[in-house]
């Protein structure tokens, strides 16, 4: 994780609220701990995923940072059973793809790619919702 900008713990409270209400999420923790609060981690129930991937709970890390005019974020899913991981990043890593990109990596098939992505909304809670819907409805069933 190497996003620039400031973390706002009030914003994390709003994002935590969204994660806690998502049906696949069993619990949400602050990482590395609830005092330092660098990012949020949602723990996913593997039994609720279709197709099922294995016994270990996947994680979804959510980090948000702000500069005066911009927001940077990473919403990243990782499956410890298969090594598959993917996520939406708004950072400076791939300017050729625009401000936001989607990236994925599948160690089983060797597939990996970075793609241009956009979100209609600016409010972090709505961006996160849209990302969660896309992840569980489109990206995971296709993996």
């Amino acid at each position, binding site marked *: *994780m*190497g*996003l*620039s*900008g*400031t*973390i*706002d*713990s*009030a*914003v994390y*409270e*709003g*994002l935590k*609220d*969204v994660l806690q*209400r*998502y*049906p*696949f999420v069993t619990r949400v923790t602050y990482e590395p*701990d*609830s*005092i*330092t*609060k*660098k990012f949020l981690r949602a723990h996913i129930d593997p039994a*609720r995923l279709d197709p099922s991937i294995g016994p270990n709970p996947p994680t979804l890390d959510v980090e948000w940072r*702000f500069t005066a005019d911009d927001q940077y974020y990473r919403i990243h899913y990782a499956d410890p059973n298969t090594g598959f991981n993917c996520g939406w990043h708004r950072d400076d890593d791939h300017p050729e793809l625009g401000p936001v990109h989607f990236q994925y990596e599948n160690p089983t098939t060797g597939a990996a790619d970075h793609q241009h992505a956009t979100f209609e*909304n*600016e*409010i*972090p*809670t*709505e961006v996160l*919702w849209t990302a*969660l*819907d896309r992840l*569980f*409805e489109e990206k995971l069933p296709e993996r």
Partner: protein
Amino acid sequence: MSEDPGQDIHASMTRGERIRAAARTLRTPRTASWVADETDVSVKTAQKYLDQLVADNVLRKLEQGDQTLYCVDQLMATYREVASLQREHTREELTSALESMRSEITEWKTAYDVETPGELRATIADLDDPDEITARREAATEWEHLADRIPIVRAALNEYDWASEHDSVSV
């Protein structure tokens, strides 16, 4: 459990809850109609919930020309943060977290021979090694975050006993 749980998420939050979650992220002052547009509700509904959040000290209302803007009440948010640290952690946990944050900063100061994260960033300009540039950039970002957290943890520790006394429930 429905067949398509993803579809339910927007329905599982009421309009009020959805606006409430979004409102906590209003770092830049915004109008009710901007919030309404972003959260897909009517302006009247957005306004109703935003005004409620103003009454609850979550948001502040600002008048700018003929516009009414809403943004997070940062002072109240900080007080709430201090209170939750006091309620969720022991004095020892807060003290040891504070010590480890401070010692991390001391390590960066020594390792890079700088006094501030800004000075550390300035050293990047003279470097060619991409790994070293990344390492310094990440250290500077992390340093800035810890520098933001330290005063909040310190504030929680300063009035820890006083807060615990006022937090006790008589049964």
